[in-house]
């Protein structure tokens, strides 16, 4: 800092004494209140330190004398939200599942609530929005249902699961391992016949031969025209939707050594009201019966 104050000739303002390549800086000091505002901000932050959680240490942080925490806040907010939902939750609880769609407000609440539950619990396998996943995780937005697409059927499936051995009321069925029962030719013929049901057979002769095999082995569950059965979760074979793939190789593979999907029973994890909402949501995805 200079000991001698220098004044700029043109403006009459003092310089700071700093010089860069002949350019001198004029001393135009900030007003004092600016400085005091800065001090006030520091003071504010100190108060903040005392009132709120501020200084971290290894396993936590200072709590602050107000005792505020974001966790408490979210708990309170959730409690408020639950209180606001109480009326609707009671409505869901008191209303028969089949009657929920008749009440527009309740229906909307069930759809939204079901969506949240779906995304948390079901979407990992069935995809967000019920878009399904390859390898046996059915699309829930289409009009194809293995175990029935009514509200009650969906509620039953979600509650008790499919082939879930811990639940006595679970939906069970098993397609025999036809690789041990039928010959290669028979399997080939029946696959051609199955393709012919959706008009895609390449080999009409084999398909014709397969018809008898189908009647003897498959029709009991899948129906004489491959129309399927919701009672045993037997897929309809004459439509365009294939759980394990619709090519001839896929069909041969499934006949030879069938895959069976498993879905957990949700009754132990989700309460009955949530399952009701889930049923409403899944039913509304676009294929509900």
């Amino acid at each position: 800092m200079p000991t001698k104050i220098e004044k700029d000739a043109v403006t009459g303002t003092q310089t700071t004494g700093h010089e860069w390549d002949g350019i001198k800086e004029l001393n135009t000091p900030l007003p004092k209140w600016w400085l005091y505002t800065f001090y006030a901000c520091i003071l504010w932050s100190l108060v903040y330190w005392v009132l709120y959680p501020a200084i971290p240490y290894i396993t936590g942080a200072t709590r602050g004398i107000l005792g505020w925490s974001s966790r408490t806040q979210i708990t309170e907010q959730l409690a408020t939200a639950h209180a606001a939902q109480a009326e609707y939750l009671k409505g869901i609880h008191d209303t028969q599942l089949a009657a929920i769609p008749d009440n527009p407000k309740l229906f909307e609440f069930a759809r939204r609530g079901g969506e949240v539950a779906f995304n948390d619990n079901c979407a990992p396998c069935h995809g967000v929005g019920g878009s399904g996943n390859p390898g046996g995780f059915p699309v829930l937005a289409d009009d194809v249902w293995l175990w029935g697409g009514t509200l009650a059927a969906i509620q039953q499936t979600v509650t008790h699961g499919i082939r879930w051995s811990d639940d006595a009321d679970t939906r069970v069925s098993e397609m025999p391992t036809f690789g041990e029962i039928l010959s290669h030719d028979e399997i080939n013929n029946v696959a051609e016949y199955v393709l012919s049901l959706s008009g895609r057979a390449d080999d009409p002769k084999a398909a014709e031969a397969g018809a008898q095999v189908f009647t003897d082995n498959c029709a009991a569950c899948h129906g004489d025209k491959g129309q399927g059965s919701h009672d045993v979760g037997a897929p309809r074979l004459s439509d365009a939707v294939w759980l394990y793939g619709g090519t001839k190789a896929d069909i041969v593979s499934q006949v030879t050594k069938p895959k069976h999907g498993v879905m957990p029973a949700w009754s132990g994890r989700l309460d009955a009201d949530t399952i009701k909402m889930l049923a409403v949501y899944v039913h509304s995805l676009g294929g509900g019966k």
Partner: protein
Amino acid sequence: MSDEIVVEEVSSVREQKEALKRREEAPAGATAGRDQPLYADRVKVYPRKVWGTFRRLKWAALGLLLAIYYLVPWIRWDRGPGAPDQAVLIDMPSRRAYFFFIEIWPQEVYYLTGLLILAAVGLFFVTSLAGRVWCGYACPQTVWTDLFMWVERLVEGDRNARMRLDRQPFSVGKLARKATKHGIWLLIAFVTGGAWIMYFKDAPTLVHELVTFRAAESVWLFIGLFTFTTYLLAGWAREQVCTYMCPWPRFQAAMFDEDTLIVTYQRWRGEPRGKLKKGENDDWSKRGDCIDCKACVAVCPTGIDIRDGQQLECINCALCIDACNDVMAKLGRPGELITYDTEANQIAQEQGNPRPRYKLIRIRTIFYALLFVGVATVMLGQLLFRNTLDINVLHDRNPLFVTLSNGDIRNGYTVKLLNKTREQRTFVLSFAGLPGATMDVLEHPADGDAVLLIAAPDSVATYDVQVRAPRSESVGESHPVTFTLTDPYKGETVTYKSVFRGPER
């Protein structure tokens, strides 16, 4: 007569001189021989009362602007049942802004953008023509500071009285005056804060709530906030806001050029300045017109000396013109020693050239004017052809498409219908671009590729729409389609381009 005036000026000038001296010496004087202080003391400004053309103009502007600010929320405008009847209202909870016959939805916030652009360009235009007109007459900081100074003058007296009062030791009388002043300031500040809230809540309802102490906590909070800022900025901060806080003075000079009218001290006429002493230096042909009475400094609300030339602190309020004209008249000299003039004119006159003309039409002003007219035209066009309906279509992402049992492909859409009128309307939604496709609205009777949909008054109706393309139709991964929304009664139509997705081929 003129002697008297001058003597009175001198007595107040002495104080002014002392203040100026303090101000000049403040950075160094107090700590002579040591380093300069890093922060400057505030030199309090005691503007003197002044009369004249520009003061009258300023009072008029102040009255008009304050009247607009305080009264506009009270203007009623009937919009029919269920709608607020306040002419100017920003209704946050229901997401609407009202301005007389105009109603703006959040989707149309570009009107606000347009308005801000107009305000900016308008400011540039005016500034390039006549300098800091905004700062001097219309800026809220100026208007409220002026109002607060007027109160101050009423309670504490004019400049000299106020200076004396501040120098006085503490007394009951001083306390009473100060308390009265701050009381009135706070009252004005409260009314200012309250009026601000009225632009966001129905004014009569709000007043009723306030009077009966039933207003919401947030209302009190905001009124408190604006009361405090008004009191602080207009009562205490004043010129500090313009000098240190406001960005505009820092870059407004970019709109200036040598043909911009600014408040100017006519140096060529005023210099050499000097005190007027009878029989000593009263030969006007040998001296400048400025008698160094510092009346211009005394009336200045920002406490500067206009004779130092153009400066950042000068808000171009032109009160110094009034003050100087007053003195010049008493001296029998021509007025306008300080005047609105351009730099080009000043240079010309200093060199003894005839006064050049004012150049109002310049590339700069033409550009700003064209820009202003352009933006205004676009906005007006938008407003005139504003649709009272709109449609937004969101294609479902999960799943992108669904293969149905018979092989048809189905796509889901969320369709939002915006009914911007005050009556319930029935629209026809139709779909085109995909031969053979059918449209379904969830829980609504469908009619092939067109469907009737109802939208409640002044609201958005949301419908889940499903479109099915027959198996035979090859849609490919993405197929352009169009949704059209028509009001069959009014004939209004809007369209939305979307896509229909299918499996990879």
